[in-house]
């Protein structure tokens, strides 16, 4: 026996309740965000008459598909606040949720391969440090110690010139994170209803009073969307057009391998990122497929390029095997930052646009979104993330500022 099994999940997770006719709050979508929101509505605001409606199986969307990278070393103040809040919560969640979902703060390296990437990276590190985000700039010799399998030779197409390091960053077992939230939310009385697709809204003028679902109408005091890639399909029902485009995003895993890759490595330029999950599989991802798509499948050249990139960085992966590839549907905004806040419709709230990087925000966004829903006002952390930024021009352009996603 060379491998240790994952910790056994708890024997009780959730009920399978019948939907009631009305809830104080209906959350659409049981991804990590919907579940964390339900949990914090109950925990922080005492609101437990809540249903989370899920068209498929619980947490079967992007929550089931992401490469589980957690970090908070984003450039802009707004982002640093949001993701660092999430990171603080991550650290206390295993105890609080009484669930070992394998949070592993093994450190995240973002590699820089060009002089401009070095400038951008160092800019981010300086900003992080002033924002209280643990971040360091590391030179190749230090990288070699952190991740010995990286090819740090100067004799490669795009040599590694340095990296940013966030030691508190890492990974967690995605499915179990969702189940941990689900279990506690369920315990506190939240109804998790699967196989229930929201197809439209009940309206009283500009006030949302409930939702139409594949299981019939359900009334709601407030409706909170947490539907990720399908958000705009819902808002289309109201004629509310959002700056969202849904793209396939692919990822893949290798067979189980003995521990070899001790941290998380991301490279924007060579374009791949990789970690080794707890069981031992290498988990790799890169960028979205170029076109819009809801098919949860992508094109193979994206995978091939990703493999070529992986081998540039990690020659030792040569004979590892891909055993499975898959895709999610991610909702991308023009500035690669999320939208969290109220809508022009009374009682309708929006959380979307997380694109390729919303897993790490799960507890943080649950917290502030719950606050927004409970009080009707954005939490200070999500204040800048309103829809109006696209009109005023106050984008939070993490993408434009050359920070990496995921």
């Amino acid at each position, binding site marked *: 026996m060379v491998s240790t099994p994952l910790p056994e999940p708890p024997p009780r997770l959730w009920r399978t309740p019948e939907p009631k006719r009305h809830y104080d709050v209906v959350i659409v979508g049981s991804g990590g965000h919907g579940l964390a929101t339900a949990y914090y509505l109950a925990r922080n605001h005492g609101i437990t008459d809540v249903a989370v409606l899920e068209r498929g199986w619980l947490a079967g969307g992007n929550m089931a598909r992401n490469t589980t990278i957690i970090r908070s070393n984003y450039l802009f103040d707004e982002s640093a606040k949001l993701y660092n809040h999430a990171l603080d919560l991550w650290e206390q969640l295993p105890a609080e949720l009484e669930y070992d979902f394998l949070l592993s703060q093994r450190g995240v390296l973002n590699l820089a391969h060009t002089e401009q990437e070095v400038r951008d990276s160092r800019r981010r590190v300086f900003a992080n440090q002033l924002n209280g985000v643990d971040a360091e700039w590391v030179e190749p010799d230090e990288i070699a110690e952190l991740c010995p399998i990286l090819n740090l030779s100067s004799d490669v197409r795009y040599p590694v010139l340095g990296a940013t390091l966030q030691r508190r960053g890492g990974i967690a077992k995605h499915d179990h994170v969702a189940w941990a939230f689900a279990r506690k939310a369920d315990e506190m009385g939240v109804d998790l209803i699967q196989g229930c697709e929201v197809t439209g809204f009940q309206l009283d003028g500009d006030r949302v009073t409930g939702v139409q679902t594949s299981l019939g109408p359900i009334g709601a005091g407030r409706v909170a969307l947490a539907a990720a890639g*399908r958000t705009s*399909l819902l808002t289309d029902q109201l004629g509310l057009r959002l700056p969202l485009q849904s793209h396939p995003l692919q990822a893949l895993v290798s067979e189980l391998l003995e521990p070899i890759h001790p941290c998380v490595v991301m490279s924007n330029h060579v374009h791949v990122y990789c970690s080794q999950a707890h069981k031992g599989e290498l988990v790799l991802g890169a960028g979205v497929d170029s*076109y819009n798509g809801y*098919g949860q499948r992508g094109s193979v*050249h994206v995978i091939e390029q990703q493999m070529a990139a992986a081998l540039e960085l990690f020659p030792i992966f040569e004979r590892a095997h891909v055993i499975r590839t898959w895709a999610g549907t991610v909702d991308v905004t023009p500035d690669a930052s999320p939208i969290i806040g109220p809508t022009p419709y009374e009682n309708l709230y929006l959380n979307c646009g997380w694109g390729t990087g919303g897993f790490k925000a799960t507890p943080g966004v649950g917290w502030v979104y719950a606050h927004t829903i409970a009080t009707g006002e954005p939490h200070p952390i999500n204040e800048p993330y309103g829809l109006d930024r696209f009109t005023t021009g106050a984008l939070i352009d993490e993408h434009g500022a050359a920070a990496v996603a995921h």
Partner: protein
Amino acid sequence: MLLIHCPWCGDRDETEFHYGGQAHVDFPENPAELDDAAWAEYLFVRDNPRGLFHERWAHTAGCRRWFNVVRDTTTNEMRPEKVLP
């Protein structure tokens, strides 16, 4: 790997093309007259349907022409868009 029909060069692999998003979004006649919201709509808001989507591609590695197609965003089935008058 999508097989995309360039109306000029014929069928080519997706890797020869660049995606251009929704088709038929015209640059406003007179941007100065638009209010901020309408301008923001032009800049940032595009349809994102599940199902048939009129979209643009550019044959960047080939003839460099832009053209429109209709694609089903769930199955990726594609057909040429009828050339509009």
